[in-house]
C-alpha cells in the first residue's frame, strides 16, 4: 500500500510515454489517486499510537546493511499527506501549462515519487537517494520552465544543495560506522543509537541546514524561487524545504541524542537568528517572491528553535512535547500556506510578468477573488488564529518558553517578535499591491483552475486552524516518542 503510494506517480510518468495521451489529465488523475491512497492510509493508521504503520522491509544492499525499508508514523504521515495535497494542487494549477506539458508532468510526477519516498524512508541510504533525486528533479524544473536568469539560479541551487547532501552523506557514513551492529536502518539505529560524536552531528546538521535552509546557508533560496515557475516554487517551498526539517526530527535527533542535547543551545540560537534575520530581510524586499522566500527562512527558524528546545534536557517535558508538536504542525502549515502564496504569485507573473511590488496597486479592484485568497494566505502566514500557522506557532512559543529555562524564555521572547515583523511585512504587501490606488500593472481575476488549486489549500489551513485535533492526534504520540528518544 505504502509502496504503491510512493511509486504510483512514477508509473503514471511512465504511462506518459504512450503517445496522444492527455498528459495534464493523466497527471491530475494520478495525483488524485495518490491522494485517495493517502486518505485511506490515514484512516487506517488512525492516531494515538507511536508504532510504525504500513511497514515494508525488503533486501536491497545487504552487504552494507541497507534495505528498502519504508513505513509511516505521526511525523511522516502528515508530510506524506501534505505532499499528496500540494502536488494535486500543482497539477490542477498547471492545467493550462502550454510549454512541453508532457515532460513537465513527468518531472512533477517523478518529484512526487521522490518526495513521498523520502518521507516514507526508514533507511538512511534510501533517504539519501530520494534526497539527492529531489535536487535533480527540481533543477530540471527551474532550468526548463523557469524565467529570468534561470540557468544560473538553477545551477546555484543544484551545486549548493548537492554540496549539502555530500555533507549529509558523510554524516550518514559516520552513523553507519558508529552503529552496533553496523546498519543504515533508521529504526534499528533509533533503537540503539550509534556511538557518534559532535562531528557527525555537524555533518548531518550542515547537510540538512542547507536544505531547510537555515541562516547562513539560505542564499540559494531567493534566486531559485524568483526564477522558478510558480508550481515549482510551491513544491520547493512546500515540500523540499521540509526534507531538511524532517531530517532533523527523523534522523539527527533520535540517532544522535547525546550530541543534540549537548549542542541544544546552539541549535536554539541558530533558530532564533533564522527567525529574526529571515523576518527582517523579508521586510526590506520589493520582489514579492524573494519576500516570501525570506519568510520561509523565518518560518523554518521556528521549527529549528522548537526542535532545539526539545533537546533541552533540563526543561519541562510536557512543554518540550508541545514544542515538537508545534514544529511538525508548522511543517504542514507552512507547506499549505507558502505553497498557496507561491501559486498566487504565479498569477502576478502570468498577468504582468513582474514580481515588483512597487509596480502593482489596487489589484482588489480588478481581481476580487485573487485578492481574497491572497489576504487569507497572508494572514495565515503571519500566524492569525483561526488558520493553521497560529496552531503551530502558539505551541512552539508556549513550548519553548514553557520549558522554564531562563535562556529558553529569552529565546522565545525574542522570536515572538518575528510574528510582529511578518505581520508588518505582509500588511505592507497588501497595502502596496492589492489595496489603495491602481498601479502601473493590471492584474485580471483568478480563473477557475487557479481558484480550484489554491482555495483548497487555504481551506485546509482554516480547518487546521479551527479544529486541529484530527492532526494533533496523529502528531502528539510521535512528539512524545521523540522527546523520549532525545532524552536518552
Amino acid at each position, binding site marked *: 500500500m505504502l509502496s504503491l503510494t510512493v511509486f504510483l506517480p512514477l508509473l503514471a510518468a511512465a504511462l506518459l510515454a504512450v503517445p496522444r495521451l492527455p498528459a495534464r489529465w493523466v497527471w491530475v488523475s494520478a495525483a488524485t489517486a495518490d491522494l485517495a491512497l493517502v486518505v485511506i492510509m490515514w484512516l487506517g493508521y488512525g492516531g494515538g499510537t507511536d508504532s510504525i504503520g504500513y511497514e515494508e522491509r525488503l533486501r536491497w544492499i545487504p552487504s552494507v546493511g541497507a534495505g528498502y525499508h519504508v513505513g509511516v508514523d505521526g511525523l511522516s504521515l502528515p508530510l506524506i499527506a501534505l505532499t499528496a495535497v500540494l502536488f494535486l494542487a500543482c497539477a490542477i494549477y498547471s492545467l493550462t501549462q502550454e510549454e512541453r506539458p508532457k515532460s513537465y508532468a513527468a518531472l512533477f510526477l517523478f518529484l512526487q515519487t521522490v518526495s513521498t519516498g523520502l518521507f516514507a524512508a526508514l533507511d538512511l541510504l534510501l533517504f539519501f537517494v530520494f534526497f539527492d533525486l529531489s535536487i535533480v528533479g527540481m533543477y530540471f524544473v527551474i532550468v526548463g520552465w523557469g524565467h529570468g536568469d534561470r540557468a544560473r539560479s538553477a545551477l546555484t541551487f543544484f*551545486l*549548493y544543495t548537492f554540496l549539502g547532501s555530500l555533507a549529509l552523506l558523510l554524516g550518514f557514513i559516520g552513523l553507519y560506522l558508529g552503529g552496533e551492529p553496523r546498519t543504515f536502518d533508521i529504526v534499528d539505529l533509533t533503537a540503539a543509537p550509534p556511538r557518534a560524536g559532535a562531528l557527525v552531528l555537524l555533518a548531518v546538521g550542515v547537510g540538512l541546514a542547507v536544505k531547510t535552509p537555515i*541562516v*547562513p546557508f*539560505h*542564499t*540559494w533560496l531567493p534566486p531559485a524561487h524568483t526564477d522558478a515557475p510558480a508550481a515549482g516554487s510551491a513544491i520547493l517551498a512546500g515540500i523540499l524545504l521540509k526534507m531538511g526539517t524532517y531530517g532533523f526530527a527523523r534522523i539527527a535527533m533520535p540517532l544522535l541524542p547525546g550530541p543534540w542535547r549537548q549542542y541544544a543551545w546552539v541549535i536554539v540560537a541558530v533558530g532564533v537568528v533564522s527567525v529574526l*534575520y529571515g523576518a*527582517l*530581510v523579508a*521586510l*526590506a*524586499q520589493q520582489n514579492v517572491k524573494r519576500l516570501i522566500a525570506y519568510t520561509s527562512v523565518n518560518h523554518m527558524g521556528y521549527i529549528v528553535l522548537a526542535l532545539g528546545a526539545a533537546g533541552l534536557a533540563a526543561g*519541562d517535558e*510536557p*512543554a518540550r*512535547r*508541545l514544542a515538537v*508538536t508545534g514544529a511538525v504542525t508548522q511543517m504542514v502549515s507552512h507547506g499549505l500556506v507558502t505553497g498557496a502564496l507561491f501559486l498566487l504569485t504565479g498569477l502576478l507573473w502570468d498577468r504582468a510578468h513582474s514580481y515588483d511590488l512597487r509596480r502593482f496597486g*489596487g489589484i*482588489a*479592484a480588478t481581481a476580487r477573488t485573487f485578492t481574497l485568497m491572497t489576504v487569507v494566505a497572508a*494572514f495565515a502566514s503571519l500566524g*492569525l*488564529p*483561526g488558520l493553521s500557522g*497560529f496552531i503551530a506557532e*502558539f*505551541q512552539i*512559543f*508556549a*513550548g*519553548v*518558553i*514553557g*520549558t*522554564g529555562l531562563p535562556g529558553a*524564555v529569552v529565546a*522565545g*521572547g525574542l522570536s*515572538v*517578535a518575528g*510574528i*510582529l*515583523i511578518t*505581520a*508588518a511585512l505582509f*500588511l*505592507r504587501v*497588501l*497595502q502596496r499591491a492589492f*489595496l*489603495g*490606488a491602481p498601479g502601473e500593472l493590471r492584474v485580471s481575476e483568478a480563473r477557475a483552475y487557479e481558484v480550484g488549486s489554491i482555495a483548497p489549500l487555504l481551506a485546509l489551513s482554516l480547518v487546521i486552524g479551527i479544529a486541529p485535533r484530527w492532526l*494533533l492526534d496523529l502528531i*502528539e504520540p510521535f512528539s512524545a516518542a521523540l522527546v523520549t528518544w532525545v532524552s536518552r
Partner: protein
Amino acid sequence: MTLLAPLLPALPVVAGGALLLVRRAAPAVALLVAAVTVVQAVLAAVVRPALTFEVFTGYQAGLAVDGLSAVMVVTVAVIALAVLVFAAGEIHESEGRFFGLMLIFTGAMLLTVTATDLVLLLMAWEVMGAMSYALIGFRWRDPGRVRSGTLAFVTTRAGDLGLYLAAGGAVAGAHTLTLASLTTLNAPWLHLVTAGLVAAALGKSAQLPFSFWLSRAMAGPSPVSALLHSATMVAAGAYLLLRTAPVLAATGWAGPLVAWAGAATALLLGAVAVAQRDLKQLLAASTCAQLGFMVLAAGVPAVAGGTAQLVAHAAVKSLLFLGAGAWLSTLGTQRLAELRGAARRYPLVGVTFGIGALALAGLPPLSLWVTKDAVLAAVDDPVLSVVSLAAGALAAAYAAKALITVWLPAPEQRDAAPLGLLERLPLPPLALLAASLGILGLPALFDAWARLLGAPGPVPEAGELAWSGLLALAVVLLVIRARGAFGEIGVLTGWLRLEPLAVAAIWRPLTAAARALARFDDHVIDGAVRTVARAAKAAARIARSPFESGVDGLVRAAAGGVGRLGALARKPQTGQVHTYLAQATVAAAVLAIVIVLVR
C-alpha cells in the same frame, strides 16, 4: 445547554464567514443573527453554560459564562444589535463584506469574554484585531485608510505578543493554560505572565503609550467606530484586566502600575480630547480617557465599579458615535466648526446625543457619574485620587465642548440629507440606557451587582457623589459660557505626537535595520558563497595550467617519443625480399661477431 457556550460566539462568526463568501441579503441576515445573539446572550447569562475540552494533550481549554462574562455577553450582543440596525440604514456598498466582518468581529468579542483559557482567549483576541484592520480599511481604495488599518493592527499586535509570553509563562509555571490557574503561579512566572497580560491589555485598550492607534481607527465607517469604541476591541483590554485583577494584585507591582497607567491615560487623553477640532477624534480620545477609569479600576481593584463603568460607557459611546455618524452621513462633515447647529437640524439625534454627552460629562443623575465614582471610591492613594478627579473634570470639559458645539445656532444653512428610520431607531434605546444605568449605584442594587460579579467593592458614597457631580456641573457650565471655543494646543491636538514618536523610535530603525541586513545578506553572505564558487573556478584554472597541462605535457612527450620510435621501427619494414636478405645477412654477421667477442 452546554452547547450554548460555543453556539453563542459561533453563530455570528459562521454567519459572518458565510456572508463574506455569499454576499446575499447581508443586512437582513446580519440583523437576524444579531437579534438571535441577543436572545442567546440573555439565555446564557441565566443558565450559565460551561464547556471544557482538551486543546493540546494535557492542556485544557474551555468556554464558560460566569457573572462577569454574563454581563459582558449581554452588553456586547445588545450594542452590536443597535449598531447593526444603524449600519443597515447607512452602509450600502459591499454589504456582504461589511456585515460579514462586523458579525465575525462581534463573535470574536463574545469568544474573548467567555474563554476560560489563554489559547481561546488569544485566538479570539487576535481575530478581533484582524477584523478591526479590515473594518478600518473598509474603504480600501483610499490608501490612507488602509494605512490606518495596518497601523492599528501592528500596534495592537505589538501588545498581543504579551499574551504569547503569558501563555509560555503559564505553561512553565502552572503546566496549564487556564485563566483560573494564573493566581496559583509563583515568581518568576507570575511576573512574566502578569507583564504579558498588562502589555496586551494596554495595547488593546489604547492606553498610554499605545493610544495613537485609536485616532487612526477613526478611518473606518461610523458604525465600526461605534462598535469598536464601546463594547468590543478596546473593551477587551479592560475586560481582561478586570478578569485578572486578582493576578495583578498578587504581584504587588502590577496593581499600582495598571492603576497609574489608567489614571494617566484618563488625564492626558482627556486633555487631548478637549483639544480636538474634529468630533470623531474628540470622541476617540475620550474613549481612551474613559477606558482609563476601567483600567484604573482593575488596578485598585474595584472590579464591580470598573465593570459598571464598562457597561455604561459602552451604551454612551456607541450612542455618541452613532450620532456623529448620522451627522457625517447627512451633513458630510465631522469637523466641530462645521457641525454647529447640527443638533437643531436633527432634533432626535441632537437630544439623544445630548443625553450621551451629559452622561459622558459625569453629570448627575446619568450613568457615568455613578459608575466613575464607584471606581474612584476604591482609590486610596491621595495623589491618584487627585489625578482621577482632574481627569473627571476634563471629561466634563470635552463632553460639554462637543455638546455645546452641536447645539449652538448654525451660522448658515448647509445642504443636508434626511435621516433614515433605521439610523434613528437605535438612538432612543441607547439614550435610555446611557441615562439610566446609574441605578447600579443604588446601594441595594450595587450589592447585587457586586455579588453577580463575585467581586465586592465599595459603594460610591453620597458625599463623593455630590462633590463630583457638582464639579462636573461647574465645568460644564463654564464650557458652555465659553461656547466650547478653547484649548487647541498643538501637542494635544496631535495626540501627544505619539504616532510620529513611535514611527521615529521603532518603525524607522526597524526598517533601516531590515534594509541594512538585506544588503548584508546580498553582499556578505551571498558574497561569501559567490567567493567560494569563484575560488573553485580559480582552483580549476590553476589545475588546468600549470598542473593539468604539465602532466599532459609529460604524457604528450612520452607519446611523441613512442611515436618516433615507432616511425624508426617502421623504416626497415619495406616489404622487399632483397632488403630483408641484406638485413638478415648483416644481423647474422653482427651475431657472429658478438659470439666470437663474448667467448
